[in-house]
């Protein structure tokens, strides 16, 4: 007998309808064959399905079983076809009757017949809504991901056995109620609070601007001055994701399997800090069936690259497109995929290989050649795309030891309040404009509309551009940063002092 079960595959960030056809033929030599461009993980479903069916108290038919995953020319990956294949075999051998209306079955089976956490459930739910498929059956562990999407029935399935008794009408599985879009992921506690950091007031202020406007920042300073600490404290002052942003982030997290069991929407901004040995594919995304890389996992969040010049040259240059466009387009033989990659870049570096160039107390031991080679890694085009450049000097240890008023220093929570207020202003401003959430997202046409400079500010900017020979890109980026600084003061127009502050982060006075 022939059974047809529906499931989904995904290409890039899109889910695609997959028809799983299972034929159980009494004639012919018994066996279990699979066709339809199945990868190794899919091929291995045979053993999982066979054992799971036997261990759930059903009978694995002694017959010639052929499974076809259609469309046959599309490569299939992952373990999600276990459940549809098992259901197909059970129906084709007359052990269960599948619902007559189209439903999606999705999930990896464990050998005991239970369902395991499976990637991509959120995308399946989006597809179900788009194709008007009413019912989806997914593993209970990741059913919450799907429950965010309204208008579909999500059935959380514990095991093959419970699903069969549900379909037979013996013991119904209750469909999941659409959850209110609340945070179900655990709160990520930042490693440091800003109140723990002594001194570095200018850097803290810069971080605040970055968090508010979504700008990129480059921190340079000798080892141990607190660059890493400042960056790691950053999640504590980032505003939570808005609803729209959250849906985008959840999509990416869902296909990479980054959503923990039981969680639904991602509400915390991602904070990714890949090591500097990360490969280009790991950073940007890729592989023959393109997968998102760190830049996409940091979408709407922070990408922290410590020891910036230690990254391979190729990786750094590959950051150009995502920094400019907020997305990466990956072309492979199998097709072209675009992943969103709109992140705040926080880059940290030493000024030279030994780290002490320009330090008043230590001698720099690097040769001119070494310094040149080190700084050449930070190419013009990359540095031009970074809005704020900041020197983080070493803090005097005596000052550190004398410091006792840690309670008087501002806590991350207080800074966050200002950041959130600044974001609210931006949200109102960009309401209804697709893809623009903060000042850094503005395109040039938006700048004319939303970032009017006062005459004095305009004059100041004009002088600075001429004196320091700033590029057109830098000019526009300066306006965006000024806009953010003005927002932090809730000032409607951009005044000369806002531009002056933005300029101070931009002009690097090299020694």
């Amino acid at each position, binding site marked *: 007998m022939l059974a047809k079960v529906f499931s989904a595959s995904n290409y890039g960030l899109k889910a695609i309808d997959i028809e799983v056809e299972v034929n159980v033929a009494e004639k*012919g*030599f*018994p066996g279990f064959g699979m066709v339809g461009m199945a990868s190794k993980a899919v091929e291995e479903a045979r053993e999982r399905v066979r054992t799971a069916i036997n261990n759930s108290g059903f009978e694995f038919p*002694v017959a010639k079983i052929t499974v076809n995953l259609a469309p046959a020319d599309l490569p299939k990956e992952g373990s999600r076809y276990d459940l549809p294949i098992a259901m197909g075999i059970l129906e084709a051998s007359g052990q269960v009757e599948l619902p007559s209306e189209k439903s999606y079955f999705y999930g990896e089976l464990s050998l005991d017949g239970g369902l395991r956490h499976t990637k991509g459930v959120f995308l399946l739910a989006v597809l179900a809504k788009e194709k008007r498929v009413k019912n989806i059956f997914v593993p209970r562990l990741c059913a919450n991901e799907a429950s965010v999407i309204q208008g579909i029935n999500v059935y959380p399935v514990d095991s093959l056995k419970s699903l069969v008794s549900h379909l037979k009408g013996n013991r119904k599985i209750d469909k999941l109620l659409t959850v209110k879009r609340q945070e179900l992921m655990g709160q990520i506690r930042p490693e440091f609070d800003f109140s723990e950091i002594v001194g570095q007031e200018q850097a803290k202020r810069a971080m605040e601007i970055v968090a508010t406007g979504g700008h990129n920042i480059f921190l340079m300073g000798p080892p141990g001055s607190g660059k890493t600490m400042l960056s790691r404290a950053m999640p504590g002052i980032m505003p939570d994701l808005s609803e729209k942003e959250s849906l985008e982030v959840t999509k990416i997290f869902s296909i990479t399997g980054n959503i923990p069991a039981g969680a639904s929407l991602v509400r915390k901004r991602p904070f990714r800090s890949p090591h500097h040995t990360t490969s280009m594919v790991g950073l940007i995304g890729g592989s023959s069936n393109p997968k998102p890389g760190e830049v996409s996992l940091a979408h709407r969040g922070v990408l922290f690259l410590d020891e910036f010049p230690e990254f391979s040259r190729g990786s750094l240059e590959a950051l150009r497109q995502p920094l400019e466009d907020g997305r990466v387009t990956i072309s492979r033989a199998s097709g072209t995929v675009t992943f969103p990659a709109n992140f705040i870049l926080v880059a940290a570096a030493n000024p030279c290989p030994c780290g002490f160039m320009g330090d008043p107390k230590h001698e720099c031991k690097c040769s001119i050649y070494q310094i040149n080679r080190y700084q050449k890694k930070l190419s013009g085009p990359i540095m031009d795309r970074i809005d704020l450049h900041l020197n983080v000097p070493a803090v005097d240890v005596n000052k550190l030891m004398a410091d006792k008023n840690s309670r008087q220093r501002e806590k991350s929570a207080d800074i966050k309040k200002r950041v959130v207020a600044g974001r609210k202003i931006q949200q109102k401003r960009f309401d209804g404009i697709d893809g623009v959430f903060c000042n850094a997202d503005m395109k040039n046409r938006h700048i004319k509309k939303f970032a009017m400079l006062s005459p004095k500010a305009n004059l100041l900017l004009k002088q600075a551009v001429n004196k320091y020979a700033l590029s057109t890109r830098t000019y526009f980026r300066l306006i965006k940063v000024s806009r953010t600084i003005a927002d932090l003061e809730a000032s409607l127009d951009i005044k000369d002092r806002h531009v002056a502050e933005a300029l101070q982060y931009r002009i690097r006075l090299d020694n």
Partner: protein
Amino acid sequence: MKKYNYQKGRQGENIALVFLQKLSFELVEKNFQNKRGEIDLIMIDKNVLVFVEVKLKVGQDFGSPEDMISPRKIWRVRRIAESFLVERPNLAKKYPQQRIDAVCMVLEKDGQVSRINHYKNIGG
């Protein structure tokens, strides 16, 4: 142990032979051997030359006999069958149609046949 298996194999081949003869198959040769291995039974079904692989299992404890016929085993039978046809060109000419069958049986511990299945054309 090895010898015991061998005896069981022979016993299974005899059971299969009687079973197929009842289905009006005619025996051509038993246990055709060469350096590549052995074909248990070679028979004629109407006008088709049939190479038969016999599998026997005592009890269910070690899996079904069907599981013991892998694609590799089928491939091996095919190779030996080809060399059989080379050795007997007359037979090959007389029976241009050929196929590979399998007879799988499970015996009770006391030697009673609990099931016997015949699968036609397992060579694909």
